[in-house]
């Protein structure tokens, strides 16, 4: 299975957001954001789109397969 990486941490830092802010906007727990940023958890398509909406980016700009 292809590994999925993301640049949420960079985008979040660029916007000056905390993990808690992003979690609140995406309606998930902070633990989920931590796990996604570390690449330990791959979000569902629904959550991936929510995150994209927060950063106003396309899904392929945030998530990439290796």
């Amino acid at each position, binding site marked *: 299975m292809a590994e999925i990486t993301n640049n949420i941490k960079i985008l979040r830092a660029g916007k000056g957001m905390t993990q808690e802010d992003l*979690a*609140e906007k995406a*309606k*998930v*727990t902070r*633990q*989920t954001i931590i*796990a996604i940023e570390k690449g330990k*958890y791959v*979000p*569902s398509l*629904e*959550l991936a789109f929510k995150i994209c909406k927060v950063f106003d980016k396309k899904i392929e700009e945030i998530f990439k397969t290796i």
Partner: protein
Amino acid sequence: MSYKNFKVARMLMAMFIAMTVSIAVSIENVLLAVSAIGIGMISMVLIKRSVKEVLVDEMVKTIAGKSALMAYTITVPVLAFLSLILMFSNLSNRGSEMYNLGIILSYVALFNMAAYSLAYYYYQKKYGRDNE
């Protein structure tokens, strides 16, 4: 209520239920035990409602699902194996407590399997996966 306060409240409630049920068992008062559990459940629902933060999300559900599957995979064979041992080691003494315990455990294992199968069938239907 913040998540931290919720965790403290949950722990205090668990302590309250454990203590009250222990006292109820020691003084043989079923009503006290049932009321403690009832009060605990209602309080937990009310406490959960007052928390504004997200408590359950998709990762929590994924972890819960995987844990449940692992618990099922371990529990059912252990129960089935234990019930077989208890029944076959007491075949000459069929009315004994150990033999009956073996029968009860085998039914518990069967009940678990039936519950799992029903839940699996339900979710398979819900998500529209056809039987191949």
